[in-house]
């Protein structure tokens, strides 16, 4: 008797192709694993040849997924990873891992939302293709338009992540990545706009990364983006995104106004002034000084001067700001097995018997004990409110 077979009525072939692509496995290697010709694997992926259960199990193992994850109805199958691979030279391992991480988080979130009937509201800004002319001028204009649209005026943005999530509906993830990666951005019709920021970076750097990626959401929405630390501007798109980020976080009018207030008639910009201004706008000291140079409020090259003369140190910042220094809760949250939102969705899906322990552990890429800690406790008893609905209709 031969192993049971499945036809392609559920689009199994395409799901297998996406899973193989996501895992970075070549067709030839997958074919070898299930002892068929490459053309046979191709036929399977095109839905022209039925796949045997034994082959499915072997391919699932090779692609580091499960048969259930490949075939269950609500699973999200999106080829995010290969899109990043196509935007430049072959990405290194750290970049590949970051891309896979964002892909897994977004797909898990969407699947759980769909299962639970949660509708995520999105309110993306209008797309603005980069036109001819000075990209910086366009970027400043587009950033100002965003501020006006959101009613921000020229006030500093204190929490750009919450703004992106709550006002725009962007999926923002903050997890620990290799230090050379600042962040990622991608847009997909099934997932929406997604960003991944590096929890290992200081908060002000993450803020700048988020603002930069926001620029890509506006101008190059359908092109995925990886931002590397200290990346040199190499294209109009990058110059736009950087200028957009600067204009969004440190709008010219606000910077001029605050600069006058803080400097208070002094003829030199001191380290104290820089620290206070950077703190006010939530950006790094370097970003602040370079913005002042760009707006011609200070002489060009001032940041380099500071660097050549001992820099502006974290210790000096602590002395000036003291208790005002903003704690970085997102850094601590990034050390948990998964995001808080995903653990809440998972706990609810488990409580309602919609997904099993094994399914959730596989979906969230956590081990069983971590998953039990997430879904157990209060939820398993019907909560600490007696299990009776206390929500109003």
């Amino acid at each position, binding site marked *: 008797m031969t192993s049971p077979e499945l036809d392609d009525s559920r689009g199994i072939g395409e799901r297998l192709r996406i899973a193989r692509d996501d895992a970075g496995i070549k067709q030839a290697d997958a074919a070898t694993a299930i002892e068929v010709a490459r053309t046979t694997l191709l036929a399977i992926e095109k839905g022209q040849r039925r796949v045997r259960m034994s082959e499915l199990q072997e391919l699932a193992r090779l692609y580091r997924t499960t048969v259930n994850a490949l075939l*269950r109805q609500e699973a999200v199958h999106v080829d995010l990873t290969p899109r990043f691979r196509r935007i430049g030279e072959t990405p290194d391992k750290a970049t590949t891992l970051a891309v896979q991480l964002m892909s897994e988080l977004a797909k898990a979130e969407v699947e759980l939302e769909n299962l639970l009937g949660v509708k995520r509201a999105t309110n993306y800004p209008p797309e603005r293709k980069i036109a001819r002319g000075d990209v910086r001028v366009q970027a400043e204009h587009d950033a100002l338009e965003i501020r006006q649209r959101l009613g921000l005026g020229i006030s500093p943005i204190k929490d750009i992540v919450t703004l992106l999530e709550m006002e725009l509906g962007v999926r923002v993830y903050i997890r620990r990545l290799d230090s050379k990666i600042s962040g990622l951005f991608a847009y997909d019709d099934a997932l929406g706009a997604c960003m991944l920021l590096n929890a290992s970076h200081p908060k002000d750097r993450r803020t700048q990364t988020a603002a930069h990626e926001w620029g890509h959401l506006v101008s190059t929405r359908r092109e995925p983006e990886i931002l590397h630390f200290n990346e040199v501007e190499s294209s109009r798109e990058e110059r736009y995104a950087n200028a957009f980020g600067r204009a969004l976080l440190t709008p010219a009018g606000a910077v001029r106004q605050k600069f006058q207030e803080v400097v208070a008639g002094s003829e030199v910009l001191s380290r104290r002034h820089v620290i206070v201004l950077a703190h006010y706008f939530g950006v790094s000291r370097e970003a602040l000084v370079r913005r002042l140079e760009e707006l011609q409020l200070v002489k060009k090259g001032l940041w380099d001067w500071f660097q050549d003369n001992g820099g502006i140190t974290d210790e000096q910042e602590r002395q000036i700001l003291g208790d005002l220094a903003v704690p970085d809760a997102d850094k601590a949250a990034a050390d948990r097995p998964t995001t808080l939102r995903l653990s809440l969705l998972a706990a609810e899906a488990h409580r309602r018997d919609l*997904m099993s322990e094994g399914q959730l552990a596989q979906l969230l890429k956590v*081990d*069983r004990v971590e998953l*039990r800690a997430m879904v*157990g406790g209060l939820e398993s008893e019907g909560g600490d409110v007696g299990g009776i609905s206390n929500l109003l209709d």
Partner: protein
Amino acid sequence: MSVASQTYSTDWSATVVLDTSAAININATKHAATLLGALPFKFLVPDALVIELEEGRRRGRTDLDEIEPLIGTGLIGIATLDDDAAEHFMSLVVGASSDTLDDGEAATLAYAARHGATPVIDERKAKRIAGLRFPNLQLRCTVDLFAHPHVDRILSRDGLADAVFNALQFARMNVPLDRENWVVDLIGVDRASRCASLSRRARTGTQLNRVGDRRFPGAEKKQ
């Protein structure tokens, strides 16, 4: 037989299939070899369990490191699905999320249903689905293994209490509500209060139907 009334039978098959949820609990006792060796069953785990734990090993978990020697010495075998079991397996993994299970859970039930083995599985959804698809399948939970009379012959009461407490602490073992009294009696109220995976009732020492021995209330009921 309704899902709600499917209770744990006192009968065991000669072959017991351990789901990942159970295997992890047994590992956490730190007495896995002793416990499994004491019990009069042939133990199997599905191949999917090995695959899942391989992935866990890549993330730094040691469950596979602890199970591999047990497989190596023959204390645990691998449950391979034949074509009939494979049909069961496919019916359990293909479909809506709410009606399907993960590969390991599905393979455990599929093998047990095909070969008349006893599956040991702590997952509530798996129990619900098993009740619907395989109403005659006799289900067991990890605690049932600990409470088996043969364990008495090998482990002292204190030794068993330590083992069960380890499973609760290190693996957050799930305990069905009708087994909690036995667990609390064994490990004591103080240790029970430190086990987050027990119900609030069990952790705070509020108990119904105190029992003095290891027989579960209603264990003789079979419907």
